[in-house]
């Protein structure tokens, strides 16, 4: 009697939802890629999802072989075409035919796979609350992954795509992100080439790199001894310092900007890179010191004591024992500080007036006017983003460990 139970009905529901969601997403993807104004056939997708889910999950889990899933895929395609009046993506099949076929099959395959993964291991029977929650959470997590990925990636996608197109095309059809590779690399990357040849982006890049690297060096040079003192040495005020150093990081930059602007203006340090190289470390040293002292505490003191017993001076103990052991922490702090300095906008914007001294952030702010075409603006944004993102992803493991080690204990 209880051949079909709550799990089956849930699977049907998820079939409807996955069908509707993926139909929308894949149709939009097709729209972006081709520039043809496709319309998502949401209800047709939902019906197709319902029937495919019905066909797939009515069977026991071990019977859902690859062959059966392929059958469900073709079922989905068939129903989608029928329910949408032979316009699976909202336009007649004569438009962009090959692409439509590919996207439709892709859509069907993704929906069936999504239903399969959601229902994996469960027959269409009645189950207890535990398994109902499991299957619901599976859907929720899948939905979350899709949602987060799109929300995070969309602005970056738009950034990159806009930088490769030209303003006229963008204004006439803002959803057309198809790239014309036939025009050759020179034309495709024209915005980038113009930024470097006409807008001094080469020098901005160099300035940004120099300011960031110098900031990292100064920060480490100041913060390493300080962190060592706070972590290892005993002195009056140690407890207070280790607790309050992070408070400096709470001081809003905007509160510092007026006095620093006034004082630097009068001292003639405002429109210089040196001014930035003084301000940036001051804001990063406290947090670097905090992160490093957390790591130094984790290094066994016995190692250093052994060094001291063998006649090394304190300085040499730091140099030869502590620092090599703290290398991962140093790397992550360096990366974090680099990121802060590279991305800093407020002080660069307030301090720099001279085009030769612009950092990337300042240079892009200059592009943000109606006279400069959008693709240049977005190309500038890509140029600023790529180095820091690449560096970060490359060293991500270190950074994550270092960022969280200082504050998360236990």
């Amino acid at each position, binding site marked *: 009697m209880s051949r079909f139970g709550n799990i089956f009905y849930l699977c049907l529901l998820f079939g409807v939802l996955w069908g509707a969601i993926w139909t929308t997403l894949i149709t939009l993807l097709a729209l972006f890629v081709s520039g043809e104004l496709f319309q998502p056939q949401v209800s047709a997708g939902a019906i197709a999802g319902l029937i495919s889910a019905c066909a797939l999950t009515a069977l026991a889990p071990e019977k859902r072989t690859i062959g059966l899933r392929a059958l469900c895929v073709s079922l989905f395609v068939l129903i989608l075409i029928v329910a949408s009046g032979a316009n699976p993506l909202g336009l007649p099949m004569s438009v962009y035919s090959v692409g439509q076929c590919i996207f439709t099959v892709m859509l069907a395959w993704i929906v069936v796979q999504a239903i399969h993964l959601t229902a994996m291991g469960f027959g269409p029977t009645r189950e207890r609350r535990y398994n109902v929650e499991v299957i619901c959470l599976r859907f929720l997590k899948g939905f979350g992954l899709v949602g987060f990925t799109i929300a995070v990636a969309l602005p970056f996608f*738009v950034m990159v795509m806009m930088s490769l197109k030209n303003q006229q095309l963008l204004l006439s059809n803002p959803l057309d992100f198809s790239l014309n590779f036939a025009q050759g690399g020179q034309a495709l990357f024209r915005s980038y080439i113009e930024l470097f040849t006409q807008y001094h982006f080469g020098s901005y890049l160099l300035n940004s790199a120099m300011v960031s690297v110098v900031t990292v060096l100064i920060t480490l040079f*100041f913060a390493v001894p300080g962190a060592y003192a706070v972590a290892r040495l005993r002195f009056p005020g140690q407890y207070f310092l280790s607790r309050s150093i992070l408070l400096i990081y709470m001081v809003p930059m905007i509160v510092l900007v007026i006095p620093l602007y006034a004082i630097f203006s009068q001292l003639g340090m405002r429109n210089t890179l040196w001014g930035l190289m003084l301000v940036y470390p001051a804001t990063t040293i406290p947090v670097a010191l905090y992160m490093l002292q957390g790591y130094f505490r984790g290094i066994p003191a016995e190692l250093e004591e052994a060094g001291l017993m063998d006649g090394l001076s304190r300085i040499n103990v730091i140099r030869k024992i502590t620092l090599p052991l703290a290398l991962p922490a140093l790397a992550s702090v360096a990366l974090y500080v680099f990121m802060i300095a590279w991305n800093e906008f407020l002080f660069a914007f307030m301090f720099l007036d001279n085009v030769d001294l612009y950092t990337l952030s300042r240079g892009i702010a200059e592009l943000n006017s109606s006279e400069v075409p959008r693709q240049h603006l977005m190309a500038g944004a890509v140029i600023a983003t790529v180095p820091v*993102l690449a560096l970060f992803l490359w060293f991500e493991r270190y950074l994550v460990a270092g960022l969280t080690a200082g504050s998360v204990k236990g």
Partner: protein
Amino acid sequence: MSTEPTPPKGLGPLAKREMRFAYMLLLPTFLIVLSVVLFPLLANIWISFKPVTLGDLRAPSILVNERLIGNVEASGDEADIRYRIRNSSRKSDIAAVSMTDDLPATLDVLGYDDRCTLEDTVLACELGDYEAGKREDIIVRVTATQAFIDSPINVKDTKAAFNFIPENVLLSNDLTLDNFRKVFDASDFWPVLWASLYYTIGGTVGALVMGLFAAQLMNMTFRGRSFLRGLYLSPYVAPVIAVALAWVLLLDPGPGGTLNALLIQLGVIEGPINFLGQRVAEISIFGLSFDFPVALTVVIIFEIWRYFPLAMLFILARIQSVSTDIYEAAEIDGATPIQQFRFISLPQLMGIMAVLFLLRFIWTFNKFDDIFLLTGGAAGTRTLTVNVYEQAFAVSNLGAGAAVAVVVFLILLAFSVIFFKFSPEDDA
């Protein structure tokens, strides 16, 4: 005369040496933080009590115009060398002005101002103080010699040199409460404060909740997880100006705005929405209509988008440090996944969530760049920090900007005191 041994008082020589060494290691940090953070903080309070505008930062100086007045056509003709001297600033005084000038040797000096002395051809004058806007003429009466007629010399050729002490507007004792009066009397003070709080609370809570959700997702094992984790972290890592401008173009209400075109294509909306330019939209639910702050909400969504990765990172690290035994035990006891999350994960995460809330709350309150780049403070998104910039650099009244900055700092101080009073001791 007892010689009973007593425990040593104070620090021993070794401890003293350690202390000195520690202070030496901390000295550079201390100096730079003192000069670039703490001193400006105090300077900001000082500036907030001063009537200073952006233009006043240029120090006043002495301007001079030197001319020979009168017709000199023959030997013995008399004329005046006139120095027209003025203080360039209408607001600041200049103290102890002195002038020296080399007069042409071919002119005979008949008389000069009694504040001046003449040695050979060098005229030196002690002109005293020049208050703001003061101008005066110094006249030197001369007669021309034949040599001058033969080869006339322009008196301007030898420039008059000045020595003076300009008043520094930042150092004067001219104090006022006008800046604070202006800040508190402004009609938009309360809306600005309200927008700040709405932004701060919305941004903080949103980023935490989204971070918690994303951390749950990243705690699963699946193929491509590390790629997705890198992707999810990128809003936090990318330069603020790059992502903010990408959002501005994405949300553009004009032709070329991707999101509006997308929503219209999907049939969700009929006309484009000015996401970053519309102050309020009237929304009615169940007959109740209320004003929904559009631009402010979009700015908050941007804040959540940019900072959920940080919360995700910390929460994920905490989740992965919880031992799996507890979950296994709960599993055996028949706890469902939601119960496990509610009764095991969440309590364990409360500590780090509280710390993150505290940090993010303060940082969001401090945030300036994001709103400035997205809306420039228009359409009801002007928070206190944007107001600092607006007053100091857009209206160019440094004093008023500093006064707003002081208000920001005081509110922050109040928050910190409250937080540290109520936050659990063992975290942070």
